[in-house]
């Protein structure tokens, strides 16, 4: 499936924080419904065929030449892995 194994999946409290984080902070550029804005769409349809490793790297370290910043100061590798896997499945409200 190409889903990277989780070394340590975030606990329920962290999952709640991350869900809010994605909806709100990522939502500024990618839209609250994650359908895209200045940033690209993050719906499962849009991400399904993209390699998870690249998406995780973009989440943590940004995409040079674009407006996408790296979030590594605030997200662990496990956090980013959870976010990418969850986005690919369709992000919960």
């Amino acid at each position: 499936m190409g889903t990277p194994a989780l070394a340590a999946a975030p606990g329920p409290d962290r999952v709640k924080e991350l869900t809010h984080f994605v909806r709100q902070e990522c939502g500024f550029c990618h839209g609250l419904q994650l359908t895209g804005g200045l940033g690209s769409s993050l719906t499962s349809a849009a991400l399904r065929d993209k390699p998870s490793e690249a998406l995780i790297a973009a989440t943590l370290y940004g995409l040079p030449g674009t407006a996408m910043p790296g979030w590594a100061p605030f997200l662990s590798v496990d956090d980013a892995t959870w976010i990418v896997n969850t986005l690919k499945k369709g992000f919960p409200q």
Partner: protein
Amino acid sequence: MSTSAKGLAAYHGPTPPCKRPALGASFLDKTAKGLATGTLTAIKHGVAMLCLCAVPALAAASSVPAIMPTGDLGLVVERASGSLLQVNTSRHAILRRIEGLGDLSHASLVFSRDERYAFVFGRDGGLTKIDMLSGAIVKRVIQSGNSIGGAISQDGRIVAAANYTPGGVKFFDADSLELLAEVPTDSKVVGLEDSTDNRFAFSLWENARGEGEIWVADLSENPRAPRISKFPNIGKQPYDALISPDGRWYVAGLFGEKGVAVLDMWHLERGVKRALPDYGKTDPKLPVYKMPHLETWAMVGNLAFIPGVGRHEVVIVDVSTWQQVGAIPVAGQPVFVIARPDGRHLWVNFAFPHYDTVQVIDVEARQIVKTLQPGKAVLHMEFTPRGEAVWLSVRDANRVEIYDTRTQSKRTELPAQAPSGIFFTPRAHRFGL
């Protein structure tokens, strides 16, 4: 609690009927607690607040519909629930919740010149016309797949919407929301601003060649056939723009490189010029967690105070020379830098992760005079028309806070669901707002 809710309903009873109940049962349920809290807060702060209690008596005493002037009204966007709160800035009151506006993340709105109607631009491409008197949705069209904002013409007859997907600008009749004209682009459109002579300026984030552009649409002769002036290759990734308060200078901030692009709306033939060669994102190690907003660059005399991009500073620009003349260190990456209407103070909010903080800068001293911590995610700030108060939306705390700008202390707070933009009706009379 039920008295408050009932009172609110009674107050609005006499207003004209609206298609959707502005005060549905769900609203009453959801806000009854909040209203009670608001009342208590008002008492605690000794504010002569508007009287969630006195209003019902007034309404009950007379069956004549209350006259509701609109000059001290406003709308607060509730971004997650697709609703708006209508507020009164004299009485620090919530009047009603208006629901059913779709995806309001990053929503903005403009007001008609008579301050009766609001035009709301939703992220989902929805354009909704709201009657400020009744709270009713007068008209709603889905005009694109993905929208970023809009503007209204100098004569008030044309509403313009800027779109990401498909990229372009659409122009609508302000009365009917009939589509008048469409200007397609091969790029997301940002920084749509209204200017003099029924012209609009906007920027193309990135065209097919990866370049930014500025376009001016002139609707003065025929709103159905805008004349377009294009200024290609103005720099990389213009992310937002502003129009100066006199409608003359259109300034686009560039994300992909340093500097800003400046267009003199009096002299389009002079073309777009670059200014502020040192301004902008300089260090790849300073990621920008939220795009700064330029729409309301604070102007005080000849000086403009603008958010540093990716830097923890407010940049001071002399607009008579377009030179940077200083910088004020602040708590984080500024998002909005807004001047109190008299220009004496600047209020600044910040991007993640410093978005729980607001700082007040004394313009004369160029120093921070107050640091406030209203709570997580202060997304927007709006001054009352003469600036005795400023309203802050505090998203995660689900409230709007109202500050006295003289003492910079909180006067009261009002409950709101994940509030973002705050818009007061006097914007109707200003360019670029």
